């Protein structure tokens, strides 16, 4: 286990190093000149040049990359070109909102997905099963901005049950969390269904039934926990979907998280912020996958470590 852990950690670290390199290269070749952006349209060539020197943009690539890496080690993601604030501070101030949204989304996707999968498995082959599986297909085929705008229209504008957007109370969280969680709910319902069907086929379930236990007890005590565990182990992998989703969901609902931060930064070509958010997302994804890999064998000893 220790050797496996060490190897996975080294692998993760190397991937992260690669991530920093790629983000750096990608953003360095952005055609828009950040120095000119900051200086504004009316600035003289001299002012633009001064800003360029100030920001170190005149240095060779490897010097800039070295400085960037050095900064990263001190949790320094650079300074926003336009807001004149540390990117670390900006991200840190918005991270709680994003984490809250993701937490809400995880609750939604598990609650909706597991329930749907459970009923589909119990009624396997029947009309309920078919209907639920069609719904799960629609859930994974619907772009988040469409889901978000439609939910906004129906539940906020038309019915007035929830606020139209913003942040602050529980009712602000409901619609964005559902929007972000619906995709996962679609996947989870399908996984839960097949996981449940798998478990129900096994010997210990037959034994439990043969003992004369009530069907509900068999389901709730013997089948469900065993069906859910391998699915829980996959939550870490969701972080990748969430990191893409927050850009859309946060901009639809005006949710003040890092997705919205990234989106605003992209429109203003504020490179350090885009890089910062991309890096933080990639870190979260790598760590999420690492956790999923580490948790899976703990939950299911049959999974071999490689």
């Amino acid at each position, binding site marked *: 286990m220790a050797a496996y852990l060490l190897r996975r950690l080294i*692998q993760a670290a*190397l*991937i*992260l190093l*690669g*991530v920093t390199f*790629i*983000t750096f290269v*990608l*953003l360095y*070749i*952005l*055609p828009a000149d950040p120095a000119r952006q900051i200086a504004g349209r009316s600035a003289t060539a001299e002012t633009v040049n001064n800003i360029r020197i100030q920001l170190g943009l005149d240095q060779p690539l490897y010097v800039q990359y070295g400085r960037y890496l050095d900064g990263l080690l001190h949790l320094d993601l650079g300074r926003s070109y336009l807001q004149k604030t540390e990117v670390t501070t900006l991200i840190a101030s918005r991270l709680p909102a994003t984490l809250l949204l993701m937490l809400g989304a995880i609750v939604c996707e598990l609650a909706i997905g597991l329930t749907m999968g459970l009923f589909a498995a119990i009624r396997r082959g029947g009309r309920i099963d078919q209907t639920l599986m*069609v719904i799960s*297909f*629609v859930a*994974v*085929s*619907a*772009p*988040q*901005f*469409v889901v978000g*705008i*439609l939910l*906004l*229209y129906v539940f906020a*504008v038309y019915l007035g049950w929830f606020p139209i957007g913003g942040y602050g109370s529980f009712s602000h969280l409901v619609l964005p969390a559902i929007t972000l969680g619906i995709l996962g709910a679609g*996947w989870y319902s*399908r*996984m839960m269904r*097949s996981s449940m069907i798998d478990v129900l086929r096994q010997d210990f379930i037959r034994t439990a039934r043969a003992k004369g236990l009530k069907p509900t007890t068999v389901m709730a005590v013997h089948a469900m926990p065993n069906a859910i565990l391998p699915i829980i182990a*996959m939550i870490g992998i969701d972080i*990748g979907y969430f*990191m*893409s*989703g927050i*850009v*859309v969901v946060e*901009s639809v609902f005006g949710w003040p998280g890092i997705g919205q931060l*990234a*989106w605003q930064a*992209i429109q203003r*070509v504020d490179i350090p912020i*885009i890089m910062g*958010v*991309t890096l933080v*997302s*990639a870190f979260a*994804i*790598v760590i999420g996958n690492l956790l999923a890999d580490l948790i899976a064998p703990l939950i299911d000893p049959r999974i071999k470590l490689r």
Partner: protein
Amino acid sequence: MTLATAPDGAGITPGAGARLGTVLSRLVRRPLALFGLAVIVIVVLAAVFAPLIAPFPPDEQLFEGLTLEGAPLPPDSTFLLGTDLLGRDLLSRLLYGARTSLIIGIVANGIAVAIGAMVGVSAGFFGGIVSGVLMRFTDLMMAFPALLLAIVLAAIFQPSLWIVALVIAMVNWTQIARVTYTETRSLAERDFVEAESAMGAGRTRILFRHIMPHLLPTIMVWATLGISTTVLLEATLSYLGIGVRPPIPSWGNIIFESQTYFTTAPWLVFFPGVAIILLALGFNLVGDALRDILDPTQKGRY
């Protein structure tokens, strides 16, 4: 499935090309797959015959397409799906938008599948350092959130239709690389490949005659599912204003143009939204059925 003879139980059907007819006939026997296929066919027809079907030119700002106050019109008998903020006919724009979705869906996904399959097959077949380098690079690209990476790329290259397709391809090839890699590796270790090489077959022969044909079903499944992902990504990029740019109509940028008015003109979001969902759903349903038919062992999350 009489040809699935792999002794270790992984049922893979060889010669998918020759069996296309069989696959199709099994496909249409499934109601959901049939529905998906019908949606795809309808969208393809709409895209191809858009100039004939569309009641108005998609870019024409019609005087009678706006109210006296200059607001868009809801669906009525002249404008079946209503008009947009510039008084253009929404139905006509949606029909032409189908072209955008399909072109990008097919081109971007075609490139993604080609890159992914090439990376996956080379890594799986050659192993060693080739595999190490290629698959670590794949892992690296998978560490980026797809949408953020696409946004960054789209911001770098001023997007045109083809650039958007290329950007999406650059983001989407990783999944298929992983799948073909695993599949190639397990094929390369099979007895029949070993027997073939014991009989003196060269590596090229083994690759093209014995491994590639067995990969076809898997690639077909993932190519179909991938179109759905591609369509959704294009719509999302266009919705964010960095995908296909107006005046070229795309289902995503129609929503982008009119999103601030969705409370007063909900049809401008509803109809394109439904169109996107239906097309993505169609490819998902067909892809899923294909997976069941061609490769029953490959049931999983993706």
